[in-house]
């Protein structure tokens, strides 16, 4: 039957399994097609990407061939990366993501370890506070950041944004690492302490080495949170310090008027490629991270 095909009823390709395959492939198509279309279209000229005359132009690139002699062109990429200096945004994003992940994991691991190894009532309250903070949209905090940041001239710089992103992602990081730490038996650090380690040494030499899978998974998610953020980075970064996502949003405003939609398309594809690579290499980690919170409740 449907849920354990290998056990009972080995009748191959029944009508129900045809429906299942059709349904699954429909979903895969819906999930992947937008990206394939945009990727393919990013090497075309605007008249092909948005084809009024004939939609097959988007595939064959008729107008691109007429203009550049080949159905593929890097004009959009050149325009975005060189002319509009998208490389700056790329560097900014790299810096922000690197430091956010590094800091989040460092302070998050310490905090989550303490929370998972303490049974006092304040532990519960700290976790509940983190849960409430986690549920608040980050944009609701921005009005609280702006006045002091303007006052002390902190607004617009990358370090400020990095610290803010680290802090608003802490609740999530704490919860995730906490559930990973709960899976590590307490006997492990107890026995280390019996052997004469202090709590700090037990943490550094015994717990952290076995925690790496959990730390990497959490790191992936805090990378995604920093990489994908739009609301906070758009509000806190000055124009020249913009990361990729707010830069793309800014492109949309300017390119529509200048007729350079293809710059934006190229930028969008460029910003998606790192995520693609990430899923390729860390698929199982991402899946385990998504289910981790669920399994532990």
């Amino acid at each position, binding site marked *: *039957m*449907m849920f*354990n*095909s290998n056990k*009972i009823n080995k009748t191959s390709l029944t009508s129900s399994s045809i429906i299942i395959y059709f349904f699954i492939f429909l979903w895969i198509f819906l999930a992947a097609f937008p990206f394939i279309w945009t990727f393919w279209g990013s090497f075309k000229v605007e008249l092909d990407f948005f084809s009024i005359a004939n939609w097959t132009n988007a595939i064959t690139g008729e107008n691109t061939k007429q203009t550049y002699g080949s159905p593929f062109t890097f004009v959009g990429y050149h325009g975005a990366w060189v002319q509009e200096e998208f490389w700056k945004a790329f560097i900014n994003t790299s810096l922000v993501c690197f430091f956010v992940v590094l800091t989040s994991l460092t302070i998050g691991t310490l905090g989550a370890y303490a929370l998972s190894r303490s049974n006092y009532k304040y532990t519960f309250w700290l976790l509940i506070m983190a849960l409430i903070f986690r549920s608040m949209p980050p944009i609701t905090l921005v009005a609280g950041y702006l006045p002091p940041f303007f006052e002390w001239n902190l607004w617009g710089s990358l370090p400020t944004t990095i610290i803010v992103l680290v*802090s608003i992602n802490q609740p999530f990081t704490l919860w995730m690492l906490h559930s990973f730490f709960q899976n590590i038996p307490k006997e492990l650090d107890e026995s280390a302490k019996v052997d004469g380690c202090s709590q700090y040494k037990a943490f550094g030499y015994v717990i952290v080495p076995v925690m790496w899978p959990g730390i990497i998974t959490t790191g992936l998610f805090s990378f995604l949170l920093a990489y994908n953020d739009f*609301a906070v980075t758009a509000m806190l970064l000055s124009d020249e310090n913009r990361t990729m996502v707010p830069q793309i949003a800014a492109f949309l405003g300017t390119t529509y008027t200048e007729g350079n939609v293809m710059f934006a398309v190229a930028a969008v594809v460029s910003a998606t490629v790192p995520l693609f690579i990430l899923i390729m290499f860390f698929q199982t980690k991402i899946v385990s991270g998504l289910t981790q919170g669920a399994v532990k409740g």
Partner: protein
Amino acid sequence: MKHRTFFWFILPTFLAMFFFITLPIISVVVQSFHTPHENILITVENCDPFGCKKVTSIDHEATKELKNEKPLGKFVGLDIYFDRGHLALEQVKQHWNNSENLLSFLSLISDLPFYKAIFFTLTFTFTVTPIMLFLGLLIALGVNAINRKLKGLIIFFSLLPMIVTPLIGSIILFWMIDSRGIVGNFLQITFEDPNLSLKASTSLTWVTLIVYGVWHAIPFSFIVFYAGLQTLPKDQIESAQIDGANTFQQTIHIIIPHIMPLITFVTLMQLMDNFRVFEPIIGFNAEAHATSLSWIIFNDLGGETRQLSAAATSSILTIIGIIILLLPVLIKTWREFDFKK
């Protein structure tokens, strides 16, 4: 763990959350009760040989002094909460008196900016969440039933809509539904209506936003449910099959109860995430037809005139909204904790 050790371990993360979450919340609350100072005007009489003229001008010094003295602005209590841009008490009262039935009342207040945003946010939250739960479960059941070799590939492509930056995902879909884009063009040909545009009407915009929301959220429920299905009690299903239960009956009576905790978990996460819907409105350029609470805050904060007080008030109302939304869960956590002790 000793209190002392606990303190040192928790200190960095505690400080980060205290200075960049707790204090900002307090600051937002305080700001929502204050409004910026108006400029102090002075009237001076300028006299020249042709007569005297009264000139009104801004007294910069006095204004600056006032601002230095009270940097928060003028205390106005709950005034901002009740003004036209937020809860709009006066207008609501008027509309209530002027409308004959509930429906016309609702349609009248849905023109007020804040209520418009609430309506969309709630509609989005309460349509996307059930649809994504249902479709995610269907896909998980389907993938669980097919050839194992394909699963890695399926999961890879399934992750894309969720992992991709929300703003970028919505921009891509926006380009596709553009009347010159592939989906928009396709729809025009199918319905033989060259003027059909998904962007022009409010209801179609809502539908596209909800479709985007579902597309973005399905992978999450799919992955979580799929993981849950791997731990199904095999013997129960077998005995159900022997008793003649069909696939549908098995799903209702064995599988759903088994993954019920996961359904609760996904629902909770989705309510939280969908309530903050924001990026698709920017990506779809949809603010003329649909706004959300987060969008209102963003809109107040941006632009030439940063209306911090207005944004702060919207922020507080949004937080109150999310607390109401999650209250059942918080109460449940609270009870379970006490029960354990």
